[in-house]
């Protein structure tokens, strides 16, 4: 049996049943990484020795009859934005190239408490700024469906690793689509929970009021299982919600119907131009499938959506300019040689940050400057309120909103690097959800004629992750898109210009 073909839940069950040990599972994943990650480039750091030691400890505990966690022995790579005590955490930036955290992020703590074995750290856009993972300071990550294409971003290392079976499931972070868009481009499932549902403590901040941690996996139930482990109040994050975390969503009954569910289709998310017709027809087909399962579909309007990208790039850059001020070379991280204080700052930051990060720090600094705050940051805040009201109005009529996750399938590496605006449009359908703080789920709903995956996005009411997961699971049960895997060895697909 190749344990890497198991879903997260199947692997958990095998570990529980004793048909596979934690060490065997860990070795299997480490072997796959050795065999395939040269082609994919998902991992920035692999901690084989540490992982095998953790796995052995779990096997020993289980053998001794000691209580072990819900995911005991499951190996996992994690996005390099999560602080892992004693294990280098770079955020894919030169400024943190040699940074070894002295504490674990709350979500890492929770995963470890559940028995997860951390096998390494996954590539991403530097400081999560990007939609293709090409902004990593260290390496490019390739889409397993076509290694000449992007896995999406910023959690592109995570989505590629799940799709290429280099991890059985993982966590990402989503500030403007960074879980959902790479999930869509790699044909996997990604959930961006409600802002405040999952602790941000120990997660390197990009834009605090938008950032949210969420699970990524091969199936909706895998994602539900991870969500249950990581969600919930954390006294170290004052913005985390004290609401109780729903349980049992990983065990949703199979083959349920969706009678009584109302699905909204927002016309603003199906524009005449800028949306790949193959993507829109796959999403329409998915909506038909929901209908076939008993859901009622009706049009809704989110009229302020067109303002989303502009508002997002003010809020996100302003907060980023502030959050990234601490990387000054004084206490940790990259420190340049300099003759004076100004030189220390200018050179440490100048050498440490990549181009996109610098671009956003400059944009954000400008947006917060005296005399511009009202016109930019405050105005963007007002737009957020309008966008949230749009959603609230829509959710008074429907239970979930269905849209494409990304306007296109995976684009070619390098294709948009010289055109930041084009790159920013990759998040056009995912951004509003972050601005409104709402949950969003992306799941596979088809393939284009190049064999590239297409994602369906479901948006829900605040803290109504259960409905998203229930709808996602019902759709998944009725379809087979999620069972497809990219061909190995991972290669470029012939044919077709971008």
């Amino acid at each position, binding site marked *: 049996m190749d344990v890497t073909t198991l879903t997260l839940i199947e692997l958990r069950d095998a570990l529980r049943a004793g048909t596979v040990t934690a060490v065997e599972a860990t070795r299997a994943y480490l072997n796959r990484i050795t065999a395939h990650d040269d082609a994919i480039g998902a991992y920035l750091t692999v901690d084989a020795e540490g992982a095998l030691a953790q796995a052995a400890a779990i096997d020993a505990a289980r053998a001794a009859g000691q209580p072990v966690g819900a995911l005991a022995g499951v190996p996992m790579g994690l996005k390099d934005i999560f*602080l892992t005590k004693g294990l280098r*955490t770079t*955020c894919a930036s030169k400024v*943190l190239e040699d*940074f070894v*955290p*002295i*504490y674990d*992020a709350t979500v890492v703590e929770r995963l470890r408490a559940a028995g997860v074995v951390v096998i390494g750290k996954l590539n991403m856009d530097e400081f999560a700024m990007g939609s293709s993972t090409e902004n990593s300071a260290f390496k490019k990550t390739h889409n397993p469906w076509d290694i000449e294409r992007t896995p999406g971003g910023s959690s592109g290392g995570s989505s590629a690793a799940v799709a290429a079976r280099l991890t059985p499931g993982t966590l990402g972070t989503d500030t403007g689509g960074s879980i959902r868009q790479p999930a869509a481009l790699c044909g996997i499932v990604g959930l961006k929970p409600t802002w405040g549902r999952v602790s*941000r*403590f*120990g*997660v*390197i*901040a990009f*834009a*605090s*009021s938008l950032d949210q941690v969420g699970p990524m996996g091969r199936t909706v139930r895998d994602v539900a299982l991870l969500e249950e482990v990581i969600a919930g109040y954390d*006294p*170290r*994050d*004052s*913005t985390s919600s004290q609401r109780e975390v729903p349980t049992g969503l990983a065990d949703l009954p199979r083959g349920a119907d969706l009678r009584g569910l109302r699905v909204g289709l927002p016309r603003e998310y199906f524009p005449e131009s800028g949306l790949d017709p193959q993507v829109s027809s796959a999403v329409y087909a998915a909506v038909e499938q929901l209908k076939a399962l008993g859901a009622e579909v009706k049009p809704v309007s989110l009229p302020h959506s067109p303002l989303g990208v502009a508002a997002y790039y003010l809020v996100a850059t*302003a*907060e980023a*300019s*502030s959050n990234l*001020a*601490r990387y*000054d070379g*004084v*206490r*940790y991280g990259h420190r340049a040689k300099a003759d004076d*204080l100004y030189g220390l*700052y200018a050179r440490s930051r100048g050498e440490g940050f990549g181009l996109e990060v610098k671009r956003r720090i400059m944009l954000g*600094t400008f947006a*917060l*400057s*005296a005399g511009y*705050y009202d016109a930019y*940051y405050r105005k963007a805040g007002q737009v957020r309120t309008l966008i949230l009201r749009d959603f609230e109005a829509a959710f008074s009529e429907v239970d979930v909103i269905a849209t494409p996750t990304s306007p296109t399938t995976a684009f070619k590496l390098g294709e948009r690097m010289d055109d930041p605006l084009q790159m920013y449009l990759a998040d056009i359908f995912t951004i509003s959800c972050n601005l409104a703080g709402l949950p969003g789920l992306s799941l596979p709903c088809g393939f284009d004629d190049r064999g590239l995956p297409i994602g369906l996005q479901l948006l829900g009411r605040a803290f109504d992750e259960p409905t998203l997961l229930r709808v996602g699971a019902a759709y998944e049960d009725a379809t087979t898109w999620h069972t497809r895997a990219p061909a190995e060895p991972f290669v470029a697909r012939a044919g077709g210009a971008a």
Partner: protein
Amino acid sequence: MSIDWEVVIGLEVHCQLLTREKLFCSCPTDFGAPINSNTCPICLGHPGVLPVLNAEAVEFAIRAGLALECEVRARSVFSRKHYFYPDLPKGYQITQYELPILEHGKLFIEPESGAARTIGITRIHMEEDAGKSIHMDTGATLVDLNRAGVPLIEIVSEPEMRSADDAVAYLKALHEVVRYLGVCDGNMEEGSFRCDANVSIRPRGQAKFGTRTEIKNMNTFRGVQRAIEYEISRHIEVIEGGGAIIQETRLWDEGAGRTRSMRGKEDAHDYRYFPEPDLPVLVLDPAQVERLRGTQPELPAAMRKRLVSDYGLSPYDAGVLTAEPVLARYFEAAVAAHRNPKAICNWVTSELLGRVSATAVGECSVTPHGLARLVALIDDATISGKIAKTVFERMMETGRAPDEIVEAEGLRQVTDTSAIEAIVRGVIEANPVQVSGYRSGKVGLKGFLVGQVMKQSGGKANPGLVNELLDRLLAEG
């Protein structure tokens, strides 16, 4: 013709709050800990950390605000204030900007010169302190982050002070209030009570303010007085000399006795404030505010009034007793144990303060209860006032209770008439010259005779009884 200039002063005072933990993490705040030992990932500004607001600091801020008659905002907001400096770990300070926790207060002042009156307080906001930079002769700068994240309140006055005396009176009144509340230790030299002054002048009668300068680095009340006086003269000199005041920040140089330019308006930081997204809006429950209001300690001004009206002390004595919160508490404890406030006041202000400083009475070997007992022994004629001074000395030396000392050393007053009469008769016999002198009208000689009797009794004879017996026996002739 010289112009009649009106001086306009506003003060910004930073008080370090005496909370056990820092404002956004649970690091201790104790002063004098080894360099960089009171730190954690949060106050070091490590990646991924988030602030959690210290409830005790909020309570202390509210207590200060209530004492200064501020309105407490039901909803206040923390903001980030950005600038780069090595002792500012995150590259921003978490403070309050648009919506501070407290607004619209006032403070009563009684300046040395000028009228007693109320000065408006614009706002009080909460913020975290930065660390400390230590600049070495080698050109290197060392950073100690023990102080980074310690809670502060910044108290901003209205520009309603008109002289250096006003400013000092305001500062002293404020100092007294925060120390009485126990929210700040008020140590100006260690920087836990820091003051910046905004100073400008304008021709009297003009509504528009003149250009102001901000003075920093004043570490004593005297320094504040001198710095403001210097700055006022400088403004007048510059303007009357045909020049113009530049809006700038100036540092007070205590040694040189002058202010010097630190940074001009054009170098002023653009702090790029925006609401702190990592902290929710601070929502205060009115019931909590009322609970704090109900448990506010008595403030010095109210206490002084009460000492005069309830205990009949002079305003001067009331002032001396309330100059230090610990002294006032000492006095009240003694009076609670023995209700003779005037006598206790005298003992405190003359004997006690003659030996220990007002701030140290709490650690003095004479406890409030011991002092009360001593006064009680005088009041019930167990010992004389003179013997009491001896007993007090012993109490200072040994820390023992006065009753114990009186018994052990046999200091109990003699009130046995026959025993005293025998001494009086002996003194009359032994001093015929003074006795006849007294009888011929030199009544002043009685004091000499009393002294002789007291001396022979070892100071233990009851002075009233001695007088009474002397009068009778001298009259008998």
